[in-house]
């Protein structure tokens, strides 16, 4: 097996990929937390709207539509948080793909 030295550019790129993956994972966790909070807030607001008697309408469909209208700020927040979480996840997956590729190349090099 061949071990690369610290000055080896390939070794450096693996280290960079590891650091980028760690950063992407931290960013994804923050985005997921924001998504989770936004999701909980939407549900909590819906419950408050219903129990507070703010949702009115002649039938279930009208009440449902009115509820959606009332919680629009929270729904918009959840939409934004969902998009941000998906983007953060994509960045993380890209970083993981790059790291896996480099490690695969390293393994091939090590065998040769």
């Amino acid at each position, binding site marked *: 097996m061949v071990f690369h030295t610290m000055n080896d550019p390939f070794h450096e790129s693996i280290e960079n990929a590891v650091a980028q993956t760690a950063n992407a994972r931290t960013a994804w966790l923050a985005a997921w937390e924001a998504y989770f909070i936004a999701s909980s807030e939407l549900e909590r*607001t819906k419950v408050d709207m219903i129990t507070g008697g*703010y949702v009115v309408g002649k039938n279930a469909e009208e009440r449902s539509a009115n509820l959606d209208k*009332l919680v629009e*700020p929270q729904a918009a*927040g959840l939409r934004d948080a969902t998009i941000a979480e998906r983007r953060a996840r994509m960045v993380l997956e890209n970083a993981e793909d790059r790291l896996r590729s480099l490690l695969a190349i390293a393994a091939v090099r090590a065998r040769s």
Partner: protein
Amino acid sequence: MQTQEQNQIYDDFLCGNDLPEHVLDPVGFRRVQHFNESPYHRGTVIELGGYGIRDEDETAPDIGPRQSIKHLGGRSSIMRVAREIEFALIGLSQRYFVAEYDDPADESRRVSIVVPRFMTPEEIPGKRGKCRSGVSLFVALKADPKRKLYELSFRGFNVEDAVTVVNRIRKLANSAAAHIMAESGKRVVPHTFLVWARVGIGESRLVGKKEQSPVTPPRLAMPDDINVATVMVSGDDFRKFVDLRKELDEYLATGRYSGLHGQALALPVSEPAPALRSGEIAPAQPISEPAPASDEQVIPGS
């Protein structure tokens, strides 16, 4: 002609808070009154809608200039008025319904009570019976350094817009909580009084029979992408607001807005209803004589 006039009165009733103070339900907290656009207010700051606080005794916080405001029916009040107000939202009532009718015992007297559900005119036990929904926001005004509780009520067509404003403030409070988490690592409950909310008025729309009566809904006068750090309340204010919230929870626990105790609203109540534990029944309010005036929570002039 009479029908048209009645329709107009009914439209005003449905859409408006533009009623003289004596027919609005008096409460233990000083009131911030929301105004729809109205020809009654030509030449004033609230010509196109806005907010006002009665100020006959010159003790109202300075939210805007003092002006004489004419109400439906011809009476006038001296009020501090503004198109926008800035406040911390301490809490809000549930949605309630207010029924108004002529007192069968004395038809010159108008009765106004909170009822648990919508009532048709036929169900209301007096002449000229009307019912509309309402919601009350309890706020601490930025212009009032004493940080007292004020009640800001919205009626009829403005209720849903008011609740949407509340939900926008809730979203802003969540952003504030996230900001605190990012800055200090502390996780805080996203109380709505974490931020100063600036609330103005939207564009008027016409409602009612033949769509002749304008309503001017409340709107949050802050951009969605505002830097939340610029509108957060100070630590001292936050601690005061937590106490106000406790005070408010006790007040709301009396069931004032549930309509279950036949709470009469026709005469002034100078003091807040006594705080009761959840489950206790509120004692009947003496409605023949208003309670003695308190220094702190009095509707001036009432």
